[in-house]
């Protein structure tokens, strides 16, 4: 399981899991799950397009993910953001479908882009992936305080002089970059699962941002490592395990929290999670 051909899978999987959990923490906090779903799909279209014109897929991934992010960011100011996201998503997917129709791409390659092919990561892809990941984490660190404040209390943060629109666009750019590097590893559809399941579970457990963030990363790593292990032993696609286990983590943590709350309910008046007021 730890033989040489699996090394790249473990390294790239670990990078993706950490990044998805860190980005996902803010995605869940800001309620921007739809954008987090749409942007990797845009990246998928980019990979298909890059394949068609014969450039490095990573370039196509980054360009299209950024285009999706800016499309959502710009249109959201005129329309409801969920409508803007839906329209950006279908536009990207339609372009992807056209690229696929025009190219002679082999079906397993398409599946790999959608559902991930963790064994397909080559050694010379690790470095760019790692660099992109580090820049995303640095971006999150720089944005940490304004992002947290504008996620929880947008009015308060704009009153304190935070440029909410700028923070929003910067965050979407980080989502785009992290999607672009996750798509080849876990696939366009399942990048999203890791971004939502573990962070949503972590938020149920702790209300403190730093603790919830750390827990989210831990749960995400556990999910992805377990998924790689299961995929290795059963030969079934990793996407299946990533998708179902992420959801399972959320459901189990939620069940556990509910049980422990009902047990402690009469012992101490429990302060509930600070509900995010919209």
């Amino acid at each position: 399981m730890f033989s040489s051909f699996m090394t790249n899978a473990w390294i790239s999987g670990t990078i993706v899991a950490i990044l998805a959990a860190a980005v996902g923490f803010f995605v869940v906090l800001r309620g921007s799950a739809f954008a987090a779903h749409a942007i990797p799909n845009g990246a998928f279209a980019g990979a298909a397009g890059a394949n068609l014109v014969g450039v490095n897929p990573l370039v196509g991934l980054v360009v299209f993910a950024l285009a999706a992010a800016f499309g959502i960011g710009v249109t959201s100011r005129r329309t409801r953001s969920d409508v803007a996201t839906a329209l950006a998503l279908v536009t990207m997917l339609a372009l992807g479908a056209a690229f696929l129709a025009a190219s002679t791409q082999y079906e397993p390659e398409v599946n790999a882009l959608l559902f991930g092919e963790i064994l397909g990561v080559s050694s010379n892809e690790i470095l760019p992936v790692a660099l992109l990941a580090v820049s995303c984490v640095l971006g999150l660190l720089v944005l940490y305080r304004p992002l947290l404040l504008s996620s929880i209390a947008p009015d308060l943060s704009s009153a304190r002089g935070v440029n909410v629109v700028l923070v929003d666009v910067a965050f979407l750019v980080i989502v785009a970059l992290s999607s672009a590097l996750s798509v080849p590893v876990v696939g366009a559809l399942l990048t999203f699962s890791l971004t939502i399941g573990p962070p949503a579970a972590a938020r149920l457990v702790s209300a403190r941002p730093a603790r919830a963030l750390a827990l989210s990363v831990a749960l995400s790593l556990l999910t992805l490592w377990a998924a790689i292990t299961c995929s290795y032993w059963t030969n079934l696609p990793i996407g299946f395990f990533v998708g179902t286990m992420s959801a399972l983590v959320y459901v189990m943590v939620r069940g556990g929290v509910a049980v422990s709350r009902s047990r402690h309910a009469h012992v101490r008046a429990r302060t509930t999670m600070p509900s995010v007021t919209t």
Partner: protein
Amino acid sequence: MRWLFEPGLFANGSVRTALVLGALVAVVSAVVGVFTVLRGQSFAGHALTDVATAGGAAASLAVVAPLFGFVGAGVLGAGAMDAIGVQRVKDRDVATGVVLGAATGLSALFLYLITLSTSTTGTTQLILFGSVFSVEPSTVPDAVVLGLLVLVGLTLIRRPLLMSSISPELAAARGIRVRWVGVGFMVMLAVAVGLSAIVIGSILSTALLIGPPASSLKVAGRLSRAFVLASALGVIATWWGVVLAYDSYYWFASRRGLPVSFFVVMLVMVEFVVTNLYARWRYWRVGTAVASPRPTKVEA
């Protein structure tokens, strides 16, 4: 007109089926979509297509009629979202996301098993992206019945649904069971989305559900007009998309047509841009908001 309608276009049986089913799906999606956009449930509407897709893949493995797979999985998904919690707006986002994530995981498994068990290629893309040209004529009666059921159901609950979409508190105060109206709507959304996902694929399903209604709500001052306009925009985009896709077969020397979904989505986007520009032009000319420039979002 030969440059526009390639020879044999209307004599082609699958084109005729495509035009009829496409129009049906466009109208059902438009009507359901107006409520979806008003309620801010675009994400759920899109997620249900992916859930339905997982069901479609499962049905094709289990050799069940695909329509039941699509619609059944959609309804199950809607139930799961409700169980996790779709009442509060922020919870809704997570609930939809968790169900969507699980469904894509299952799709990954089912599609992998399909590629193992069949030697035919293109199944994955057909299930994911759909093709209105490949709908079997035997699906037509079932699809028509389901589509009509959704329209009738929505007509029955339209007043409480509208009320609880615009102001849940007011609706509750007037004795409307907001939760159950919401569940009823989700079920109808799931059926409509499952239906359109099998007929036109998951991309177009979302495009027709959100695009034409969002365009029509920009310019229609009254809700009844929004329904009519959204349906018209949806049908126009679908029909022209089918015609252009058919024509595109002759555009390239490679005899490789572009997919219907590509053309329909582009037409939907053109309609969205044009209606937005028109709304802004009218707003600027009259100087006051004749129609609400954006659907009113009532703060809770």
